[in-house]
């Protein structure tokens, strides 16, 4: 089993690696690093531009293949993702920013998964009752709202709330207020900043997972083994909880992995909306700035997240389902 999981991991790792390299090539094709200098006033000389771009390794006059090789060998042998347009180390920025992003992403997806599963089970067990309808339609409503719209709407609500209360209980710009003192104050401030984006992300996650969980649960409810459990003397409710939920969780591990990509995209939107300086912002900004090294590195970061989540999903699947254990 361990061997199998390791094989899967290697498989995903190779895919991520190829995806990153292809992203670099794509970035080279799509982005024009010269553009940001050509527009300057006074316009730097061609030599100056070439000098800068050569130093960054992103001169479009060099063949793409050799640039890619250079970039890739730097990563493999030196762990060096190159420099941004302003000579900042990409690796350093990635390290700092991923801490910011992961805080939101992990908390949001965990809460989303938890509430999604709970709501899905509840909805399925109470199928077609009013409570199920409410859960179903609210989840459709949330899913019909793009995450950035959800974020802004929550901001509007929070503004009204703050106005009603009379002071800024809920913060929605940045990750923290600079210059605060005292552990308690800092903690309170962090939570106040974290609240809205986390709420938005977990609402989105919960809406999505609750749909899957409800369907998985409904499949299970009509299963023969629920009937067997009842024929043994379990009541309907007990049979569902003990035999139904446990089995319905199995396909969820796959869905977690599937939908993790949309969650990453979602948290990227939220970083922009709530002005968090995380990897999502980094990715979008570097494309706007035509920064090839930074763009490719952010794609690398995303694919690593997908790689980890896919592997975790496999592990979870094996843990939940004895049939796949070898």
């Amino acid at each position, binding site marked *: 089993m361990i061997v199998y999981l390791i*094989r899967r991991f290697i*498989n995903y790792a190779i895919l991520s690696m190829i995806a990153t390299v292809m992203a670099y090539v794509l970035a080279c094709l799509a982005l024009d690093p010269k553009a940001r200098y050509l527009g300057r006033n006074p316009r730097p000389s061609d030599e100056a531009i070439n000098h800068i771009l050569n130093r960054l390794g992103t001169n479009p006059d060099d063949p793409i293949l050799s640039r890619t090789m250079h970039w890739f060998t730097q990563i493999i042998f030196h762990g060096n993702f190159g420099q941004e347009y302003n000579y900042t180390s990409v690796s350093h920025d990635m390290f700092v920013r991923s801490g910011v992003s992961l805080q939101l992403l992990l908390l949001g997806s965990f809460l989303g998964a938890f509430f999604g599963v709970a709501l899905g089970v509840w909805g399925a067990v109470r199928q077609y009752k009013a409570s199920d309808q409410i859960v179903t339609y609210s989840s459709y409503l949330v899913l019909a709202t793009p995450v950035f719209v959800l974020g802004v709407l929550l901001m509007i609500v929070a503004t009204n709330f703050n106005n009603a209360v009379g002071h800024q209980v809920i913060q929605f710009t940045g990750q923290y207020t600079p210059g605060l003192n005292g552990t308690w104050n800092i903690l309170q401030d962090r939570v106040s900043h974290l609240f809205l984006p986390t709420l938005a992300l977990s609402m989105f996650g919960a809406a999505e997972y609750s749909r899957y969980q409800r369907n998985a649960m409904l499949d299970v409810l009509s299963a*023969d*083994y629920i009937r*067997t459990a009842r*024929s*043994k*003397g379990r009541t309907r409710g007990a049979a569902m909880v003990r*035999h139904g939920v446990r089995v319905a969780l199995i396909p969820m591990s796959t869905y977690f992995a599937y939908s993790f990509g949309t969650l990453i995209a979602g948290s990227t939107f939220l970083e922009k909306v709530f002005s968090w300086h995380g990897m999502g912002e980094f990715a979008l900004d570097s494309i706007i700035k035509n920064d090839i090294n930074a763009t490719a590195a952010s794609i690398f970061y995303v694919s690593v997240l997908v790689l980890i989540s896919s592997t975790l999903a496999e592990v979870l699947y094996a843990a939940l389902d004895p049939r796949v254990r070898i």
Partner: protein
Amino acid sequence: MVNAPLLEVRNLSVDFPQNNSTVHAVRDISYVINRGEFLGIVGESGSGKSVSSMAVMGLLPSSAQVSGDILFRGESLLDMDDRKLSRLRGNEIAMIFQDPLSALTPVYTVGNQIAEGLLLHDKALSKQAAATRAVELLRIVGIPAPERRVKAFPHEFSGGMRQRVMIAIAIANNPNLIIADEPTTALDVTIQAQILEVLQKAKEITGAAVVLITHDLGVVAGNADRIAVMYAGKLVETGSVDDVFNRPHMPYTLGLLRSVPNLITAGKTRLVPLEGRPPSLDALPPGCPFEQRCPIAIDACRETEPPLLSIGSSHEAACLRAPEIAAGQLQAADVFPRPEPIPAADQAKVEGRTVLEVTDVKRYFTLTRGAVFKREIGKVKAVDGISFDIHEGEVLGLVGESGCGKSTTILEILELTSPQDGSIKIDGVDVSTLTKDQRLAKRKDIQVVFQDPMAALDPRLTIEDIVAEPLTVHNVSKADQRRRVGELLDTVGLEASMGSRYPHEFSGGQRQRIGIARALATEPKLLILDEPVSALDVSIQAGVINLLEDLKERLGLSYLFVAHDLAVVRQIADKVAVMYLGRIVESGRVADVFARPHHPYTQALMSAVPIPDPDAERSRKRILLDGDLPSPTDEISGCRFHSRCPLFKVLDPSLQQRCLTEDPQLRVIDTSSAACHHAELNTLQVT
């Protein structure tokens, strides 16, 4: 209430409201089960037999509307809520379900699932004691090494073993009533025989009454004390096994008994078809539901539905003409006369050329795991060197249980490409020499009919398009296609005007006829019939078998008839080949093989087939096989049957040695061939 019967069902009706109609699944049935009694409820799909017992368990879906009364030891079950019923379920009343694959929760060990039932009803029981008892129960139902197997998950068990686990769960709390709903339907015959044996044992140990629900008359003939026959949601005949089997009074029972192929009579007389199908349960006409299929219906049958009439002591039948049958004025042979065979003048001339010759064909599969890095984890010898031939106008029955390689064999033939090893010749032409165009042309000569007629017909095409499909490949004009479809539908006994309908508008038997019509479209020489009747209701089977017999005679066809049902093969085949684990272990003319089987496996197979005749069943001596088919990846040295062989067990160790080391080849014994070293020493008796 000491004198109350164990279970009394009074005027039970179950309705399922649909979108704009109501399905009357069970209609006003009453019956009684006494302590320790064995009742067999027989009926075809849709007869309401399962629904009525699910009603007893209180396990019907919430949309079901139940009326009437169900009294268990005098207490009304319908008045109880789920909590109260739960105390009875598994404790007083236990149930065994049809499909053991899906009836066990996949994520818990079997020990866990057995213990669950124990702990639910005995709060004082410790977990440890429950686990110990689970091991004991597994031993009782015949699971080898129960201490180890108790920790296994359901997917690690075979179908037969899972059904044993289900029985263990059912008897865990010594119930007074066990309801078994088609417990052996999904299983092979030799496993079915084992499970029925375990069920009898369970009944002896617990002293419980057993209700066995089945469509198989043979299964109840040997086991039940009393029989209840259901048709279209209604009880139509009840009585002791002997009364119902020997003196049936409801024409449905009569027809059913005459239409089922039976190992004793098969091949000697033609089958009597029971045409038509049950009425749909959401739009029942007034009168007797069997009226449309009944050859002796009179006007009165169309007006009111006959109630159960008493005929003798505890023998009842729901037929207005039952008194005439009882008085001997109506004989079974008059009600359902045997159809005449095709007159000699209409029979096609056959020259006896060889149409199919299979020589030493092998097909091995490698099992692999992993998506990108494939690694081999074993080799399955699905077909391991088999040879047979079929002549013009001849039927070869290929018999074996699931996993024996018979399906792989026919797929190998149908591919029309060179097999992994060995050779396949069709009409004298080796298929490995065919070019692409020749192969396409050759496909005309060999066609296939599949087991499940629903799966074999594309639900989204009309019958006309389905039947014409083989012709589209061979450049036949549209007009010719349409004309040919009309002819073909007529040939298989359907109306040409049905061409514009869709498959789901037809009954199973009709669908299979459509499948046969399609196979005949290109005027093939050889039909490969893959279990063509096993998915059909028993009353329908006879009609399809007769059709196949007639077509063979009239068109001079040859059949490769693959089946697990020995009685059907005995009925239709000229030659038989018995397969076990990828090899043919016995072959010969049917008359010879069935009269004097030489291989112990053939003997066990024949003895496992239940016969719908209580007298025959009681006097039979069974040869039960031990255990399951070995895993297909196992390497077996010597004879591949030795692990389960009943003959091997009684042999002298010096003789056993040969079975363990030397792989037996087919050799001629008497008039047939068998692959057994010691066939001459075989003194096992089969009846």
